[in-house]
């Protein structure tokens, strides 16, 4: 990953709190989340006067929010005090880029019950390989083999609980359809 050797000193620095690009933005985001939870607390929890406070349903989420609030404020204060690191915009862009791959993942989830695990996995792997720059026939061929192996191992061999594709209903009735529905 890095050409810099891992020395104990470097690792100790990594343990310490160093402000990263985008740290302040995310700290403010977390503080905002905590604020929203505090505002929502009275109407999202129940408090009964006849129970001990530790047995109140609201106590434990309240404790969680309390810890978050306390630590979040302290962290925000530390962040504001430490030197600003350049690269906030790049960091934000990097975070936004993860949404694209999350969308790919969700898309994969959505198409599996429609076109079946095998076809969906093949399409997903080939498309993502292409998207990330691996477009050579050999690389795509490896991805194809990899997709088939994954499907056979998990659905065929380990019988993992994944629903069969709706398209398999179009196959001729009999052993072929059953095979696809059970194993692919």
């Amino acid at each position, binding site marked *: *990953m890095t*050409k810099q*050797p*891992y*020395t*104990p000193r470097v*690792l100790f620095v990594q*343990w310490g*709190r*160093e402000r*990263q690009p*985008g740290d302040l933005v*995310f700290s403010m985001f*977390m503080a905002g989340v905590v604020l929203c*939870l505090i505002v*929502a607390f009275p109407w*999202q*929890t*129940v408090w009964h006067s006849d*129970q*001990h406070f*530790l*047995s109140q*349903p609201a106590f*434990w*989420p309240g404790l*969680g929010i309390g*810890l*978050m609030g*306390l*630590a979040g404020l*302290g*962290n925000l204060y*530390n962040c504001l005090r430490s030197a600003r690191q350049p690269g906030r915009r790049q*960091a934000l862009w990097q*975070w936004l*880029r*993860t*949404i694209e*791959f*999350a969308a790919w*993942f*969700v898309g*994969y*989830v959505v198409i599996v*019950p429609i076109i079946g695990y095998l076809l969906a996995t093949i399409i*997903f*792997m080939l498309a*993502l*390989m292409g998207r*990330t720059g*691996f477009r050579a026939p050999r690389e795509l061929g490896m*991805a194809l083999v990899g*997709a088939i192996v*994954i499907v056979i191992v*998990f659905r065929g061999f*380990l019988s*993992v*609980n*994944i629903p069969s594709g709706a398209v398999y209903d179009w196959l001729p009735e009999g052993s072929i359809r059953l095979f696809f529905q059970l194993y692919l």
Partner: protein
Amino acid sequence: METLFMAITLLLDWQVVLAILIGSLGGVIIGAIPGVGPAVAIAILLPVTFSLEPLVGLTLLLGIYGSSMYGGAIPAILINVPGTAANALTTYDGYALTKQGRAPRALVLAYSASFFGGVVSIICLMLLSSVLVVVAPQFGAREIMLAALLGMLLVVIAHRGKTLLALLMLGLGVFLNNVGFESIRYTHQFTFGQTWLASGFDLIVVILGLFALSQAFLLLTARKVGRGDDAQNPVSSPSLVVGSAREHFRAFFRHRRVASVSAGFGVLMGMIPGVGEFTAQFLGYTYAQRTSKTPDQFGKGAEEGLVASETANNAVPAAALIPLLALGIPGEALTAMMLSVFYVHGVVPGPQLFEGKLDFILALYIVLLLLNVLVLVFLMVSTRWLVRVIDLPPKVIGICILVLSFVGVYALRNSVVDCLIAAGFGIFGCVLKQLNWPIVPIILGMVLGGILEVKSRAALARIDGIADLVSRPVSLFFMVAIVLVLVVHFVGIYRRRG
């Protein structure tokens, strides 16, 4: 003797044998791939193990947990990239040895040290778990409540320099554990009228999102992820692991003092919830350096440094099982995941397990020993081929993690909502990783927060004030430990600032 025979009978099941093989060998391969790590692999495999027998499932996960650190040493030594985070310190002297043309010696030293650490840790597990079993009947609700509280405290304090962030994430974990339907007055909390939130956040979905999906997103969005010093990459050498292995083994035994002390640190740190491999490594390494006749060689290829690092990190996994098996308290994320395997099968770790299922416990011990032997043999034979695995481009690894994560999340209950939640936690985890914020406290907050909640309710019905809370020896011990930990922590902060 009869119990031992029953344990061996359990191990003769073909599924257990297969799990030992897949777990140990798979763990080595996973550990050798930088960017994957045991947490990702265990998170993916966790739902698969639910359909297996408890011993089979746990063997598979333990195999991956224990053997990944063996594998992680390979890229750490050969290309200066630690396979798992716990192998980071191995690069310091391991890679220096490789640059001196002593890669075979470094690898064999690392394997021997790992094996030694693993075996010492298993022996401690056998001895100390049985000691804890004697003490265990004295563990009631209040004692487990205090143990969970101590665990939460240590999780925060162990994140040196990031205690506020760890506290923030721990609070988030406690909060997430309480979203949805609550069982006291049967009301909904923080669901905002959304039915899909009524069942709350499933621990497995959160784990998969935070560990597996976040890692995939991180690898897929990385602008440039190299393999370290490619120009000097010695992996291309076909005769990498040649030479007299016996001679290298003998070299390891010359460092038996360092290895023993480092293994001790590993066991101790493994037993304490939330501390783990990093602290153990640093304690072992610092001890080796301070007691060495050539301290200036550390970082330049000191064999003692490599031995200290690898022994300490491999002594942690089995030791981390001591509080899990004896008390049902997970020390970190990986043992928290394993705890869910116990729960799914209705097996409750703790004193009852040692009383009612001693054959199961013995079988687990034997499995751990077998795993270590198998991995050592496998590595001695196969390293020259294994090192090719680390040549996989990171983006391809990212794609594979995405496809495998789908199996983990979707197979739970075929829920698209679960996948959306996991994707959300994946993005969140990716940002946390980029910012170097701790993730593990979220998981431990969910697990330990749940234990604390249930046990405190049970304890409250039986105690009368603080004095009564600490009126029993074990609860007094935990209370003193909590106070001591807090005092030492704050005194440390005061001294550093002073």
